[in-house]
């Protein structure tokens, strides 16, 4: 299927280029938007593999939720790029060294084992892969799945603990009190005698 291949290389190319742009673009907002594009292209590649659940979840979680908050924060920050780039020349040699080491590792791994192009297995032949994933998640991986839930709970507790402050001096409304109010608390009926005409 040549069309599939063309689409794959298209999205693969967009993915690589946008990933590169994330780290090279001068404007942080652009970086975040390029990262969004990255996730999106990756999701499209998942779709080509017929892994629609993973693709949609990637878009839903990363693009729809995580990156929105990223963008939110980055937009509000006044990032001084010259200050950030100050140490660039100094750290460049170290960076290159690490990058070369990583590249060498990848090269050795690929060279020693070869690339196996037959690893793609279509697991979803019977039933949708959403169903299959769900079944595995709640049977075979039940224990790790539950632990992951607790990790998220701890993240919530930690975030609230670190940011939530009680400010007794701030004024706020208590809606339940507002609802519970009765007429007698607010309004008093007063009988006022008319002054009469006897002036």
């Amino acid at each position, binding site marked *: 299927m040549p069309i599939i291949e063309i689409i794959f290389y298209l999205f693969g190319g967009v993915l690589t280029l946008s990933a590169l742009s994330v780290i090279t673009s001068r404007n942080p*907002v652009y970086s975040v938007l390029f990262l969004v594009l990255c996730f999106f292209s990756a999701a499209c590649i998942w779709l080509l593999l017929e892994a*629609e659940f993973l693709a949609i979840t990637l878009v839903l979680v990363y693009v729809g939720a995580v990156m*929105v908050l990223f*963008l*939110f924060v980055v937009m509000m920050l006044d990032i001084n790029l010259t200050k950030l780039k100050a140490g660039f020349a100094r750290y460049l040699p170290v960076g290159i060294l690490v990058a070369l080491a990583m590249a060498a590792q990848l090269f050795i791994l690929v060279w020693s084992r070869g690339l196996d192009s037959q690893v793609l297995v279509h697991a979803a032949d019977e039933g949708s892969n*959403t169903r299959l994933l769900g079944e595995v998640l709640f049977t075979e991986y039940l224990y790790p799945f539950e632990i992951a839930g607790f990790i998220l709970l701890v993240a919530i507790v930690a975030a609230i603990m670190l940011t939530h402050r009680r400010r007794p001096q701030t004024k*706020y409304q208590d809606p339940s009190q507002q609802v519970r109010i009765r007429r007698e608390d607010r309004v008093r009926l007063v009988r006022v005698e008319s002054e009469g005409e006897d002036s």
Partner: protein
Amino acid sequence: MIEQFTVLAWTVAKVLMIMVPLILAVAYYTLAERKVIGYMQSRVGPNRVGPKGLFQPFADVFKLLLKEIILPANSNRFLFILAPMLTLVPAFAAWAVVPFSDRLVLADIDAGLLYILAMTSLGVYGVIVGGWASNSKYAFLGCLRSAAQIVSYEIAMGFALVGVIILSGSLNLSTIVNAQSGGLLSWFWLPLFPLFVVYFISGVAETNRAPFDVAEGESEIVAGFHVEYSGSAFALFFLAEYANMILISALTALLFFGGWLSPFAGVPIIGEPGAHWFLIKTVGFMFLFLWFRATFPRYRYDQIMRLGWKVFIPITIVWILVAAVFRVTGLYGG
């Protein structure tokens, strides 16, 4: 190769068959809004263009298309132009999986509901990017408000859908509708009533409509994130907003009101399911959007947040448990 081409052409044709009526529906929805609100406020509404004002939407569209797009000074040109498209694309893309009847659906995919959630969650980018790129404080304030609101209500909305998923046992929209077969009383609005209410109200908040329209807040921040937009760019924002309202109405009809199923199942002729039932229900919910706008005063921002986080999310979580009990005991679903 020829075969692939025909498949492609047929798909494009089907897409157009959804898109064109949708755009027309948006056009007349704007007219309906002005008319309905007009009558609710004892006015007539637009009645100059065409018989009874029926051609008013076309006049509006041509006016907007012919106007100049003004780029504010120091705005970010590229993102400023991109933002309206970012809003519009997901609003239309979500329609790909909406089933109009038993067989009328563009893409009957298994994870349809997830796809819709993913697409609706993308709409916020247009708002954020547009507000930021405008280089205007009102636009920026509006976009922050709107983004925070959309992200907050998405959670309640997603949770409300979990109840539907539990009872129907599927993420496929056609299967969800079929799981509700039977009359009016076997639709999911009954067992999932709190979720239905939460879902629809969250939908109103997601589309930044009254009474949750602080993001636009004419009286305080002029018009929110699209204050700097004019001409066709503004028209795109407008189009997206109304397309999203129609989408929310359609989804509510599908998920809680049995989609194309007839409320009088079993009765001859009027008991037959069909696309007309789906359209009637959708229009009904679309009317609710207008009704809300005409009657409710605007929520204050902190009250919106409180409602979303402290009221809706707990309600949905509790009702998810109840729905699970329904399912396990076999009362509904399963």
